[in-house]
């Protein structure tokens, strides 16, 4: 029962978006989604390949990004 309430709450919570995302802005993201995802995979792979060849920089690049502005 509590579980159900939780599910209901989270569904109601979904309706909390107070900002109008704009139909066109929403759809554009869906349309270019595949492209963006692929681009990200390619970038990640490419940086991994680069890392193999530039051993010196490995340490710098693997540092947690949370520390970059601390």
């Amino acid at each position: 029962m509590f579980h159900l309430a939780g599910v209901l709450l989270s569904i109601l919570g979904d309706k909390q978006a107070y900002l109008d995302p704009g139909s066109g802005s929403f759809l554009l993201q869906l349309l270019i989604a595949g492209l963006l995802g692929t681009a990200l995979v390619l970038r990640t792979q490419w940086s991994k390949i680069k890392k193999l060849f530039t051993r010196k920089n490995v340490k710098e690049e693997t540092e947690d990004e949370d520390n970059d502005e601390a």
Partner: protein
Amino acid sequence: MKPSGQLGASFRDPSGFLFVRDGTLYRQVNRVYAENYARLIESDLYEKLVKTRLLIPHTEVDVKPADPDLAFKILQPERVPFISYPYEWSFGQLKDAALATLSIQKRALKAGMSLKDSSAYNIQFYRGKPILVDTLSFEAYREGEPWVAYRQFCQHFLAPLALMASRDVRLGQLLRVYIDGIPLDLASKLLPNRTRWKLGLSSHIHLHARAQARYADVTVSEARRGRKMSKQALLGLIESLEATVLGLKWEPVGTEWAEYYDSTNYTEAAFDNKKELISEWLEGLQAKTVWDLGANTGVFSRQAAGRGAYTVAFDIDPAAVEQNYRRVKKDKEQNLLPLVLDLTNPSPFLGWANRERDSLAGRGPADVVLALALIHHLAISNNVPFDRLSDFLAELGKWLIVEFVPKADSQVQKLLKSREDIFIEYQREAFERILAKRYIIRKSCQIRTSERWLYLMERR
């Protein structure tokens, strides 16, 4: 009815609101936001963002809510000393605010949350860095959903930055007219055609504007036909926005003021003497807040900031402000805020009921106002009589350090070159007499080896 003390800008998001009681700023978190708030705290996202100085720290306090019917918790956020607006930021400030927003969104996604808005007004400059001040901007990330704040990000950040970098830096002022960011169809029209060949701008501005026009009358669920956006794709979107923002550049050269100190007619002795006098007077005042009007790149602002006063350095020239901001960043200066401001038309009250964004005077008064090498520009270039000038300055601060530049000075002669000299009253005696109606002149001194005079005045 609006709960008492609720801020004029804090009404759109039902998650909560800001209110001021007995001079202290609080944020009421409403019950509808309870789950998201818990997630923000429990996921360590709050702690990480505060640690990296990307989110304003707060403490939960036990005070009476402003609207008890809705209240879940009351927070007391650290207070930003001076609230500034995107139309007052230089290019670099707006760019850094955009990058901070994207960095926050990336960290949020890692923690299973997402920004539900990306308003530039949610970013403030605090201790020299852009920081998110809206603790209630996060929501649980829902798998498959696009970014709800994508449109807002493009309007508030990307469009003005692209226009400033690719067309003219002054177009940043459009943000003052369009309070929810620059409409993308307008940005697309104003941007040079060459920007269509750049992947980032062509998709996030030009194509985006076309998509908005194309689907204007369509409901989201209708047009989406069950399509989902993977988290990978969403991260790709954020990275693409980041790369686009990073690719936009503007260098502060070739404008009127940025090279002012190189071309001024001050002798070194006069400049040093001016600095000494200001330094000595500031020392005596022990000011907490200083507004430097016509600050240029902030030479004299730094004298105030160096004494511990929170100093806002206003200038009309975006290049001077940009140089000033770069210096703040480089030297990690924490209590100096450079801003773009046209004193002949200072920031007004704006937005809903004219109460969303404060005017310049509405954010004062400061303890001390500096008006150095400024009066002749206002009195001569803008034809402002001394009594009006005096009224305005007195509204902005209790103390005034002001420099009088006489007609004989080459800078004034330059202003009079193209026009008839109708300024009979522009004399030092008249200046003193008229300002003395509003101020008590505490100190006055001629700047060594120059015709200029410096005054320390206290408001009556």
